[in-house]
């Protein structure tokens, strides 16, 4: 604005600095608290008077018979399976919708758009009954198979996102590949996929995050401690321990958000642009 006075931008910055501080204070406090002794846990100060590293080591071993190493291995194993399944299925489907013509395409596309809006909770019960009958409860199949079929947490959304992106890749490239004798699969794999790389990264990030936080799904389908994910392990400690061990619980909770934080730190550029242009919810 041409009429604005000089102090206005400064005021905005003061407000934003204070506001940002309020936003991150719980997290900064959390980091400090994870190293605090239980006697000073409730204090608003960020720095502990004595660094109690045992919160981490004891917390790591606080589930009898297991360590968090097991739970992290389980979670990462599940994540990798789900990621591979998601990337395989969603890219193929998106290419089909974006590039090929087939009867009823518009109809199926509008169905895809409808499933974007479908609240997952309506499907939980029949899917559970189905997976129960198939003997899949307490395996990772209820997570991997839906993702292999472009479903699961965010599946149809990823397809939609990839379709939008592939539509922006010039069709002339397909034509010249066709003349060169490339098959549809060849066009998909060698022409379109390399160019759709940014969209594939966005899908990877969000698939990782959403499945890391898919607490309800893990709660439903995994019921032996051997197969527990990090979230389930955290809840188990929370339920079994007294308030005296809050330090350990906060320490382990903090460790549980590190993967998401790393993803965010290293892929920030893709991240914020991805949200702004596609409207993904974090």
């Amino acid at each position, binding site marked *: 604005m041409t009429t604005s006075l000089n102090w206005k931008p400064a005021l905005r910055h003061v407000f934003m600095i204070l506001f940002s501080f309020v936003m991150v204070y*719980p997290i900064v406090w959390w980091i400090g608290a994870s190293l605090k002794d239980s006697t000073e846990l409730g204090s608003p100060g960020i720095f502990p008077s004595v660094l109690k590293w045992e919160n981490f080591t004891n917390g790591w071993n606080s589930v009898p018979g297991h360590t968090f190493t097991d739970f992290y291995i389980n979670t990462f194993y599940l994540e990798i399976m789900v990621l591979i399944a998601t990337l395989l299925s969603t890219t193929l489907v998106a290419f089909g919708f974006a590039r090929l013509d087939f009867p009823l395409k518009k109809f199926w596309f509008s169905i895809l758009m409808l*499933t974007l809006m479908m609240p997952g909770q309506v*499907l939980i019960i029949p899917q559970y009954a189905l997976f*129960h009958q198939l003997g899949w409860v307490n395996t990772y199949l209820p997570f991997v198979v839906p993702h292999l*079929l472009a*479903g699961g947490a965010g599946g149809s959304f990823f397809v939609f996102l990839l379709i939008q992106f592939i539509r922006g890749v010039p069709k002339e490239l397909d034509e010249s590949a066709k003349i060169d*004798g490339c098959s549809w699969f060849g066009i998909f794999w060698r022409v379109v996929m390399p160019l759709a790389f940014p969209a594939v990264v966005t899908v990877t990030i969000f698939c990782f995050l959403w499945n890391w936080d898919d607490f309800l799904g893990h709660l439903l389908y995994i019921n032996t401690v051997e197969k527990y994910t990090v979230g389930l392990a955290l809840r188990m400690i929370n339920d079994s321990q007294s308030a005296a061990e809050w330090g350990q619980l906060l320490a382990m909770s903090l460790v549980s958000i590190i993967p998401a934080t790393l993803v965010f730190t290293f892929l920030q550029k893709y991240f914020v642009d991805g949200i702004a242009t596609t409207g993904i919810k974090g």
Partner: protein
Amino acid sequence: MNRSTTTIAEGAPSLKKSSYFKSRWNAPLAGYLFISPWLIGFLALTAYPLFLSLYYSFTDYTLMQPMKWIGARNYERIFTADPKFIQSAKVTFTYVLASVPLKLAAALFVAMILSKAVKGIGVYRTAIYFPSLIGGSIGVSLLWRNIFGVDGVFNKLIAVFGIEGKSWITNPDTALSTLILLTVWQFGSTMVIFLAGLKQIPNDLYEASSVDGANKVVQFFRVTLPMLSPILYFNLIMAVINAFQMFTSAFVITNGGPMNATYVYAMYLYERAFSRYELGYASALAWIMLIAIVAATLLISFSSKYWVFYETDTGGKKRK
């Protein structure tokens, strides 16, 4: 890989068999082959379960016993003799009606400030987005439980201002507010979408309106809000759908308590289905939830013609 040689090698036979290839490019089979993962998934894991759950909702079905058709009796019981349904529906409506407007208002307000303060925007945006990134995790729910506990840091903080604390999560009057606060704290991704929308508003609209003597408030209601309304509409629908399904934080922070003050609908559904294994009854509850969400979405989308303006309406540039 040497691309040019493969091109020539593969290109030559294709000329000879051009009729074969021509038919291959038109084959509908290829299209269906590509979309088959989704199609199978949709039929087997969405459409079929959807009808199945509708069917279940008219039965008495536990996983252990054979299913029994009982007509509309589940629905009858829900609406006439189920105080927990009334309670959880009330809690969820309160939660939706409080958290969604607060979240959108916070997101829009901060986005407007950030759209002007350009220096250091990356740092602010990161600070504001970070809670949204981790907010849905059980780790943050446990943090929240500690912060708002009776010995929690929130009480120590307000004690500085001379306000006497209480146990926020075990008090029926305040427990839901702590969950709403957690949701509002995660306004980051909503804000980033608003921010992208604000950048699309042409500056000459503001200049023209200030020439006409419009002040900041008038500009907000006459320029910013109408130009931003398609994005507001999108954010509103997404926030409402998400809020209806809230589960993790209520389950972990308060476990529905105290005195069912945070007993959200999704938790009631979960309890009926997976603690008591009353799958028929829970399916009826799920269908009521679906209808409520669809009704809310339709209500918003019907109302949208009165408050959502696309740039084409105002004779402006066409949307991309």
